């Protein structure tokens, strides 16, 4: 192969590959999420942040921080009166009936099938401002992340009306025990 043909071949190849290379490079900063933080959507409630705004959520130094571009909002964990995940809500509402529904399917497939019902989780917070006013915030996040954030918030001084023990107790209802036997 002559040098000219080689050059044409390399140039052609680079033209074909370049969109993929630039696309992958462009995606790299978007993927980079600092360790311990979660990509979420703020559904409603944070002062100064529009509804349905995507951003990064971090729990550190006794506060919950939400950031989107230059917009930032912070809530002190000590001011949080209630932290509830979507799963907590379902347990409280559906309780035993919900568990029966899940267990009715054979070989635990109900629980497996339930994963397809929703790939997103919610985290709901109630907190007080400096004047004692009650606020509520809702975040939507990938499934399983809400429980992790809830644990972090509780460890840093937040309170909840659905503690982990209560959640576990409702999950291990008598019907659940019977099914296991």
């Amino acid at each position: 192969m002559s040098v000219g043909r080689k050059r044409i071949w390399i140039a052609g190849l680079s033209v074909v590959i370049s969109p993929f290379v630039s696309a992958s490079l462009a995606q790299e900063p978007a993927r980079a999420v600092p360790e311990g933080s979660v990509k979420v959507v703020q559904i409603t409630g944070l002062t100064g942040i529009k509804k349905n705004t995507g951003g990064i959520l971090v729990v550190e130094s006794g506060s919950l921080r939400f950031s989107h571009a230059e917009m930032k909002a912070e809530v002190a964990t000590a001011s949080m009166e209630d932290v509830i995940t979507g799963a907590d809500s379902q347990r409280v509402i559906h309780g035993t009936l919900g568990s029966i529904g899940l267990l009715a399917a054979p070989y635990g497939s109900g629980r497996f099938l339930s994963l397809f019902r929703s790939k997103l989780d919610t985290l709901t917070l109630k907190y007080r401002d400096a004047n004692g006013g009650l606020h509520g915030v809702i975040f939507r996040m990938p499934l399983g992340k809400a429980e992790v954030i809830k644990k972090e918030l509780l460890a840093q001084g937040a309170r909840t009306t659905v503690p982990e023990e209560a959640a576990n107790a409702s999950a291990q209802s008598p019907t659940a025990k019977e099914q296991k036997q």
Partner: protein
Amino acid sequence: MKKILWTVMVAATLLTQLAGPPALRAQESKPVKIKASAIKVEMIQSDEIKLPAEFQISLYEDLIQQLQKKGFAQVYRQGDRNAEKAADLVVLHSTVLGFKKGNEELREVTTVAGATSIRMHCTFSDKDGKALLVADVTGKVRFLGGNLRATYDFAKRTAQIAHDHFSPVAGT
């Protein structure tokens, strides 16, 4: 021919009486507004009907936002100490009467099934707890939007009721 003319005349007379002078009719339908310079929104109560936490919060936050949009200069949250100093304060209590959680995917596919609806009992009272206005309001999402859009619908309707019945200046 006479019969037709007679029918047309009677119909015209009836129509004009029904329509009436426009200004007068508008005055008739307008309720006399109660003086309220500030409104305090209490957290949504759902003791008998279990409501997911995200719906409760969404109802509360949407109510506050919609009331602010409707021109209420002072909208206080539950527990706000500044509300105690406010003159002509109206307190809004909302209790869940019914809740049906629909399905967004089902709505999009069928357009007739999967609607979400929330029925609420709203009481506007004065500082001493005397009821000034009571209304049952329903929020729905039938076609487009997530389940939480029902809370926006409820808030918008409730804010409109508040706007129609309360004003910083009495009687206007």
